[in-house]
């Protein structure tokens, strides 16, 4: 058996560590690319959301390289993501790809053992303790990778020489694919973070701060977001995003399995505007926008794929937050037709606006 899995930003690093530890053979699909998207578009329903289309592209590209089984997470709604696994199975089956699926379904109060039974299936014979250890390592790596990303957000905005951060990070992404085993991966991450901290910086500048909110795939995945975080970073903006891979793993999977209390600060903050969980990350979008504003951020960028249901609700509500908290919000909607030029112009105009607001605020004082 040769496993593969669809991309979600940097999640492949953690998944790779997991599969290394479990001793499973796997193929990482080529990084998201134009061809993957084209394959996805050709095979998916026209109005499916973009992440599904790219997933299909990832899987087919990995299949061509020899993968025969897909590892994917499930879910129970209300948004489409929970049914991705089935849609993908059906699409590939009808398109004639002979490829199996292993779905790790969102735990619904089931026991730890049941939850890992899917994992046990692929590891023939490894005991549950080894699996638990691998899961622990994987989670730690997911957290480390997210911290590393966060560090790039900071360094980009203050680096003395434009491009230094990008170049360290690019090397990291190339190299990490070739490094095997949780320990080595951890080591390489910490080396990279050392390299980042060594980058020469401008001192004494206070960069603009922008919070990125929205649908998880497009906020996390640099290909679909046209490199949103690096773009803003290279305009001298320090970005942050609360929705991350590790956060998703910890809050949505592990804490549910272990029945731990979840961090719901964002839900509290969102309550006056969106009083309930409606699916996807709509409540996070609203809640985090409010919390960013309270922390003194200069602006918010919401990003989501066209037809994304929860984010359309959030988008409708954001003007109220914008108004009440006096924080500018830019909404970017991505689909396969989105042109890079128009996208960039809007982003640049937004940053100009934020800069002007800062200047005006400073001269008022």
């Amino acid at each position: 058996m040769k496993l593969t899995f669809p991309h979600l930003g940097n999640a492949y690093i953690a998944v790779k560590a997991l599969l290394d530890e479990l001793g499973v053979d796997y193929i990482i699909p080529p990084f998201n690319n134009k061809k993957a998207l084209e394959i996805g578009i050709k095979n998916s329903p026209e109005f499916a959301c973009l992440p599904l289309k790219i997933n299909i592209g990832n899987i087919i590209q990995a299949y061509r390289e020899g993968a025969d089984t897909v590892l994917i997470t499930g879910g129970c709604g209300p948004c489409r993501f929970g049914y991705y696994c089935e849609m993908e199975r059906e699409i590939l089956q009808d398109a004639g790809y002979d490829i199996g699926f292993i779905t790790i379904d969102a735990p619904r109060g089931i026991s730890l053992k049941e939850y890992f039974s899917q994992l046990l299936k692929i590891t023939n014979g490894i005991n549950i303790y080894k699996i638990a250890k691998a899961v622990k390592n994987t989670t730690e790596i997911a957290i480390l990778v997210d911290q590393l990303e966060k560090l790039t957000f900071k360094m980009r905005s203050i680096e003395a020489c434009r491009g230094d951060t990008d170049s360290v990070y690019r090397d990291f992404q190339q190299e990490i694919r070739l490094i095997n085993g949780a320990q080595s991966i951890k080591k390489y991450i910490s080396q990279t973070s050392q390299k980042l901290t060594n980058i020469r910086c401008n001192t004494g500048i206070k960069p603009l701060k922008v919070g990125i909110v929205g649908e998880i795939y497009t906020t996390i995945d640099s290909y679909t977001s046209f490199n949103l975080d690096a773009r803003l970073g290279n305009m001298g903006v320090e970005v942050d995003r609360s929705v991350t891979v590790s956060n998703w793993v910890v809050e949505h999977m592990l804490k549910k399995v272990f029945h731990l209390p979840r961090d719901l600060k964002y839900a509290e903050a969102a309550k006056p505007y969106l009083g309930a969980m409606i699916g996807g990350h709509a409540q996070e979008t609203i809640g985090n926008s409010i919390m960013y504003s309270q922390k003194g951020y200069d602006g918010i960028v919401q990003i989501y794929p066209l037809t994304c249901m929860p984010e359309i609700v959030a988008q409708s509500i954001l003007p109220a937050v914008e108004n009440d908290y006096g924080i500018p919000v830019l909404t970017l909607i991505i689909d396969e037709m989105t042109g890079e030029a128009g996208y960039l112009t809007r982003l640049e105009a937004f940053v100009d606006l934020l800069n002007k607001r800062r200047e005006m605020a400073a001269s008022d004082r």
Partner: protein
Amino acid sequence: MPAKVGIPRSLSYYQLFPLWKTFFEEMGAELVVSGPTTKKILDDGVKCCVDEACLPVKLFHGHVADIKDRVDYLFIPRLTSISKGEYICPKFGGLPDMVRTSLHGLPEIISTEINLRKNKRNSLKAAMEIGHYFTDKDSQIKSAYKKAVGCYNLVKDNFEKGYIPDFIRPGKTAETKSLEKDRNLNIALVGHTYNIYDSFVNMNIWRKLENKNANIITIEMVDEKAINRNARQLPKKIFWNYGRKAVGSAMHLLNEKNLDGVIYVMSFGCGIDSFVCDLVERRIRRTTDLPFIVITLDEHSGEAGLDTRLEAFIDMVRWRCTDKK
């Protein structure tokens, strides 16, 4: 003077109105239902909604605008789930919040959450919360609730037998019996109730088909037990109430020998339809050569285009019928 409660003739209206009507009348409230969809209602909705919203959600806003100045309360419950283990659509869950930010000068909104996903008994709890807007007497609310549920079930049962209830009857249809013999074509019309029964939105598709001597079968006319039996065959449970019903009824109807064609009506940009329509289509294509078309509705849909497509579709259906004989 009784309190006036406004109900937009949109979205959940097409499924749950008998429930709301009985309940509020028993509570001594006066109901104000927005008028049938018009161009003005559509335009009002489009104006105040984000562009990206689907047509039905835009229309909902238009219907709210139609009645908001004439009522004491707007009834826009937060419909998270109306069936165990299932959701409706994220937009139904966020509807009161969307309306609140998109429209101004609104009366008080009754936005009680209705969430039966984990427990069916939550519906009584929701009814109590809503009822307390009108009375302190729990017993009165309970009996209103009971009556409302009874009324809703009756309408639903009759619908399954082919009797289309008055509150949504489109066009001139009196009643339709499933797969009857005297009309010569049996066409399944699959889609959300608010698309299938709003003749403005679907550009009178119902009447158009009947004029071509088609006997129309909708999801609501299929026995729910049969729907569930079929839906259970899917490897993974569909967690949308509509999705289960659409796929389940399509699978059921496919097994009935005298079905002649399937029309899927979907809203442009509808997230749920994008998956459900695909699932339905795959099941048709895998096992039959039944004519199948998708009609996509949005605010720019033109009637001429629909006519041409229906014409071609019906021709194909007839051609296949005579070919078989």
